[in-house]
């Protein structure tokens, strides 16, 4: 089926006209903005919902950093605001602290960096950059968003439950997550947490299948796989990883639901509950089984987060250096290698669970192997900058920032991935510093880069550049000031997820540092508000974009009108004649993908 036919099949008879670009006139507010099937609108829905969650998750980190930095101070108005359960007497309570840490992790990993990042850019870029009028199934696409939305509502509601939201860490290891008597958060809060996550898995499967189908089937004429921009490759691999690993997570959750509610013993064995003074009947289960199922998604999940970031950064670095991305095929190959390896490294999260040492050595080997494709990517990004002509747009600054924190956080992966060294550093602040830099901060920076870069395509207006600069510099400096010193806390063996360190002879020496970090967290978080102001102000009041191709880019999204309607192109979808990276070739600043190869021009073979 041609693109055109698929589109019409999904749009129903009312839209089966050839004047696709006129049909948005007939749409009501609800079909255009709420239950929209236009990939561009769905992309904005993902983005803005992701932002809401980023603010909630970020605010949580500010609150628990307040506890870590100022354990002896109290803010009485916190109790008025949050209630006794969270902040009795103006102190964050232990249960409140663990709930904050847990929901912060869950929300940031799944709602912000998975849905917010791939949801936004896969929806926006896949059809626009491959030359399709919409996704393979706009309906599933819409459902994907609404499953995500409901997942969010359920998660949000768990915060208001009497026994509190789930508070056993985002990894939700049983038995802690299976038994309400071990922690109040494992009661109703955990039920809601599982329901929310199950809905989220449905959402990400619907969208993942859609992305794969779209990329494979709906590319415009001439758009062979090797002419795809790296963003599309990255989003494609991301979808593949998600589709193959999320179901395993769901299966783990289903067993957990059985253990919680139906008396099975998948994860439970030999348990005596101090709280009630009773021994449980469950015997023969393995608590470690859940960790295998969890990390079989959990590890690929970090690549679900980082791959789209890599794609966005590759694209933005190339455009703003006015140079082709260096080593296109190596870039695709390394992403493929990361995708493949991501499925056979999960047990490096479990080196200290007592797993078979032989198994541990295999996982060490594969884990360190991932450093190779990662190193290739970094070197290729550096070479892309080399002898370019760099335009420091806010997007470019964030992309360079991404490379910097990706290097910083990636290198410590060699420490933690090496099992014998991990025995010392596992679950310490070293680990927190590592994954926040390499996956958290890096992906957030790439997400900002993407928003700044494609904002004109999304809203037909520009964001304020000066605010973008201020946003970038405070964010990157803040991120390093927050996470760099945490390596040192980790090198003191300081465990993560501690509510209070003052009773520990070995860890109490960092109270000043914790204070400092908490202050920086507060400033850096506030700066993100500045970004939000810039974003929302610019949607309505930003300077109108006057050029179809403001960045001088080669890809197809810049051949659409400034404010493209549903269907993206007026008239025919353009045909593609070359790869996406002909910058500064033969003395021309850039050559669009739609420009045919000239008579005396050599096509770039890669």
């Amino acid at each position, binding site marked *: 089926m041609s693109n055109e036919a698929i589109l019409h099949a999904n749009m129903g008879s009312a839209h089966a006209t050839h004047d696709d670009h006129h049909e948005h006139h007939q749409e009501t507010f609800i079909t255009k903005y709420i239950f929209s099937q236009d990939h561009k609108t769905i992309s904005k829905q993902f983005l803005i919902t992701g932002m809401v969650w980023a603010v909630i998750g970020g605010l949580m980190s500010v609150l628990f950093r307040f506890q870590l930095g100022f354990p002896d101070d109290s803010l009485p*108005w916190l109790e008025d605001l949050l209630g006794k359960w969270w902040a009795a007497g103006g102190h964050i309570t232990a*249960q409140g602290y*663990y709930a904050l840490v847990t929901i912060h992790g869950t929300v940031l990993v799944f709602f912000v960096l998975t849905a917010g990042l791939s949801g936004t850019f896969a929806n926006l870029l896949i059809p626009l950059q491959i030359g399709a009028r919409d996704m393979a199934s706009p309906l599933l696409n819409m459902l994907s968003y609404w499953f995500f939305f409901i997942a969010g509502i359920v998660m949000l509601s768990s915060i208001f439950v009497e026994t509190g939201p789930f508070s056993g860490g985002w*990894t939700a*290891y049983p*038995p802690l997550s299976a038994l309400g008597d*071990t922690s109040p958060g494992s009661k109703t809060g955990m039920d809601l947490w599982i329901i929310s996550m199950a809905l989220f898995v449905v959402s990400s499967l619907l969208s993942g299948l859609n992305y794969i189908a779209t990329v494979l089937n709906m590319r415009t004429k001439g758009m062979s796989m090797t002419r795809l921009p790296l963003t599309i490759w990255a989003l494609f691999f991301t979808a593949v990883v998600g589709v193959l690993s999320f179901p395993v997570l769901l299966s783990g959750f289903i067993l957990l639901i059985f253990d919680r509610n139906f008396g099975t013993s998948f994860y*439970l064995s030999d*348990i*005596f*509950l*101090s*709280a009630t003074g009773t*021994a449980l009947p469950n015997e023969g289960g*393995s608590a470690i089984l859940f960790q295998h199922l969890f990390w079989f998604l959990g590890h690929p999940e970090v690549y679900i987060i980082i791959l789209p970031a890599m794609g966005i950064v590759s694209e933005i670095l190339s455009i703003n250096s006015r140079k082709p991305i260096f080593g296109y095929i190596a870039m695709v190959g390394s992403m493929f290698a990361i995708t493949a390896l991501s499925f056979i490294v999960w047990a490096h999260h479990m080196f*200290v669970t*007592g797993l078979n040492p032989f198994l541990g050595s295999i996982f*060490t*080997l594969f884990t*360190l192997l991932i*450093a*190779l494709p990662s190193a290739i990517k*970094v070197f*290729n990004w*550096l070479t892309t*900058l*080399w*002898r*370019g*002509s*760099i*335009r*420091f747009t806010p997007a470019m600054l964030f992309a*360079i920032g991404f490379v910097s924190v990706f*290097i910083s956080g990636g*290198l410590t992966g*060699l420490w933690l991935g*090496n*099992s*014998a*060294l991990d*025995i010392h550093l*596992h*679950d310490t602040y070293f680990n927190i510093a590592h994954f926040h830099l390499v996956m958290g901060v890096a992906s957030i920076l790439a997400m900002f880069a993407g928003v700044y870069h494609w904002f004109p395509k999304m809203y037909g207006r520009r964001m304020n*550049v*000066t605010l973008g*600069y*201020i946003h970038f*510099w405070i964010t990157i400096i803040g991120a*390093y000031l927050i996470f760099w010193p945490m390596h*040192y806390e980790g090198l*003191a*063996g300081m*465990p993560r997820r501690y*509510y209070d360190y003052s009773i520990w002879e070995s860890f109490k020496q960092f109270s000043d540092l914790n204070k400092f970090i908490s202050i920086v967290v507060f400033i850096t978080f506030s700066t993100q508000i*500045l970004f939000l102001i810039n974003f929302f102000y610019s949607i309505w009041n930003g300077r109108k974009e006057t050029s179809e191709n403001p960045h001088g880019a080669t890809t197809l999204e810049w051949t659409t009108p400034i404010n493209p309607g549903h269907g993206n192109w007026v008239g025919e979808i353009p045909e593609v004649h070359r790869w996406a990276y002909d*910058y500064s070739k*033969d003395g021309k600043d850039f050559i669009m993908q739609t420009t045919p190869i000239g008579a005396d021009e050599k096509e*770039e073979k*890669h």
Partner: protein
Amino acid sequence: MTMFLTITAIILIFLVIFQIAKANEYIAIVKGEEKSRKQGNSINAYLMLGFMIVGLFGVWYCNKLLYDKTLLGVPAASDHGEKVDEMLWVTLWITGIVFIITQILLFWFAFKYREQEGKKVFFFPHSTKLEIIWTSVPAIVLAVLIVIGLKNWYIMTGDAPKNALEVEVVGKQFNWIYRYKGADDVFGKKYYKVINEANNPLGLIWEDNEKLGLKDDAKAHDDIVLQQTMYVIKGKPVKLIIGSRDVIHDVGLPHFRLKMDAVPGIPTTLWFTPKYTTKEMKEITKNPDFIYELSCDQMCGNGHYSMKGIIEVVTQQEFDELMAGKTPAYHAAFPNNNPKTETAAPATAAVVDNKPIAQKN
């Protein structure tokens, strides 16, 4: 009040920044957009350079401030820990060098190749030679790291020496219980369903129980059960047999550079040879309050942060004296059955120091 002032101040600062940023936009239009774009470009290029220089200085300064607060300057207190430290330094050197080179290249390129009049861009889409170099060099370096790592990994996870002192460590919300073999040098059997918080926290099998199909195990009668503090011997390998009574905990031993999960239903092990007694360590660290702390390193509930154990490393002689003074848990629970205490001093609690560490809430 201060909070409201802070928030007001922040809002005001935002307002000012926002107004300036807006004004910049208008100035740009008046001045010519291309010109002001180039100005911004060059400012950011210099900021990149500045960030690199200040950042590298910051790395050095941060190290200077914090080095002494870490364990980097403190010798590892176990043989395995020394291997960890060795590895740590090798890895630190390798990753450190790569870090400095790549960060300098990144920011230097960003600065050097900023957009400038008359500068030509080099069309350079790929180079097989370069790509082979930077695939194979890291591969070799990684191979070195892997070989060192796996060698150590197999030593650490290998079998403990035969003469090792075996201690059972059991986690529960939120403290640690230790068991020694007692006079017969054998751990008696235990079963979690006969756990009795008051006098049998590990569920040692001390009597027949038909309902559960248990037979009294005489070997369990002399096992010594301790809480809070565990004693191990300097220079003698110790093998910890680790378990949990409820949720997953983790035996974290920062000074010995080791760690192992405590999983309900699945015993795990960890062995090492302590190198310095607690007293010696007080001198080495120049901290008279020094103690070897056992921290729970796996999220185990709302009291996770207070789940602290203490390990006291003593000499063999001190250890023997200490153990001679401990009453087996069975005798403490049933003083009447204790041959030694017929004159019956009131039962010294089997459970020493059994007070939970104060929890803040």
